[in-house]
C-alpha cells in the first residue's frame, strides 16, 4: 500500500447512504439541544458550512433565510452546522441581522467535537481537516436520507436547485413518478418503465401520455 493509499484508508469515515435511515444524533444548537428525531414528520435540510464569519457562508446563510418561508410551506425545516461554538454562531447570526438586515430563524448546530460532521461525512480532508465542506442532506418525514449534495469550500450553493430538489422529491412521493432533467413544477413527469410485456403494450396504447417509446413516457399531473 502506497503512502497516499494508507493516508486515504486512515481518513476513511462512514458515509451516509441514500435510502437508508439518517444517522441519529443529539447536538447543541442556537435553539437549544436538538435531536434529529425532533424533525420526525417533517422534511429536513441539514446543511454544513465551513466556518462562521466567512464571506461565502454569509451569502449562503442569507440565501437560506430567503427560502426559509417557501421551505416551511412545503413542510420542510432547515438546520445548519459548522465546527464552531454556540457563542460564535450566536454572534455571527446577530451580525448578519445587524449588518445585512436578515434574520436567521433556523437552528445551527455547534459541532465543536465533530460528532455530527463525522457521522455524516461532512469533512473532506483533501480540502480541510478542520472545516466542514458545503454539504446538503435531505431527510424525509420518515427520517430516511433522500438526497445529498456536496460543494467545495470555494463555491456557494444554488438555492433554486435545493428548492427544486425538495419539490421533485415530494412530487415523486405523492404521485409515484420520476422527474426528468431540469424538471420544474408544472412540467410533465416520467412514468416508471413497465415491468412486463403486457404492461408495455398497454402503456403505449394509453391515451393522454406522451411516449417516445414503451419505456419512456411522460404525463401531466
Amino acid at each position, binding site marked *: 500500500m502506497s503512502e497516499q493509499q494508507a493516508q486515504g484508508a486512515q481518513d476513511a469515515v462512514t458515509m451516509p447512504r441514500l435510502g437508508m435511515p439518517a444517522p441519529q444524533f443529539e447536538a447543541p444548537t442556537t*435553539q*437549544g*439541544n*436538538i*435531536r434529529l*428525531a*425532533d*424533525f420526525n*414528520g*417533517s422534511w429536513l435540510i441539514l446543511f454544513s458550512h465551513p466556518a462562521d464569519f466567512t464571506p461565502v457562508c454569509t451569502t449562503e446563510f442569507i440565501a437560506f433565510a430567503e427560502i426559509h418561508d417557501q421551505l*416551511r410551506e412545503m413542510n420542510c*425545516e432547515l438546520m445548519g452546522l459548522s465546527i464552531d461554538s454556540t457563542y460564535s454562531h450566536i454572534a455571527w447570526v446577530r451580525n448578519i441581522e445587524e449588518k445585512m438586515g436578515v434574520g436567521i430563524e433556523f437552528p445551527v448546530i455547534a459541532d465543536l467535537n465533530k460528532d455530527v460532521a463525522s457521522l455524516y461525512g461532512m469533512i473532506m480532508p483533501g480540502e480541510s481537516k478542520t472545516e466542514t465542506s458545503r454539504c446538503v442532506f435531505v431527510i424525509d418525514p420518515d427520517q430516511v436520507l433522500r438526497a445529498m449534495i456536496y460543494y467545495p469550500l470555494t463555491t456557494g450553493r444554488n438555492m433554486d436547485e435545493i428548492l427544486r430538489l425538495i419539490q421533485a422529491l415530494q412530487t415523486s412521493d405523492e404521485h409515484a413518478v420520476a422527474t426528468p432533467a431540469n424538471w420544474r413544477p408544472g412540467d410533465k413527469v416520467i412514468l416508471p418503465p413497465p415491468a412486463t410485456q403486457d404492461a408495455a403494450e398497454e402503456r403505449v396504447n394509453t391515451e393522454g401520455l406522451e411516449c417516445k417509446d414503451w419505456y419512456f413516457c411522460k404525463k401531466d399531473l
Partner: protein
Amino acid sequence: MPCIEGDALTPTGRELLEALAEPRTDEEIKAITGQRLFRVRISLRELMFAGLASVEGGLYTLTEAGRTKLELSEE
C-alpha cells in the same frame, strides 16, 4: 425560546403548560401554540427534564409540579 429561565417560566413555557391542561399529543400542542413541531418537541423535553410535564403513550400532560408552577406564575 426556552421554557424556563432561572427558576421562572418564560411566556413560551407558560403557554405550553397551559396547553397541557389536558393530555395532548405534540401535534395538538403545535396546533394550539402555532409553533413549529420541532420547537414544540424541544420545549416539551425541557419541561419534562424540569419535572413539569410527563408523557405516556404519546400524550403529554402536566405533572403536579407543573400544575403548581403554572398556578404560581399566574399569581
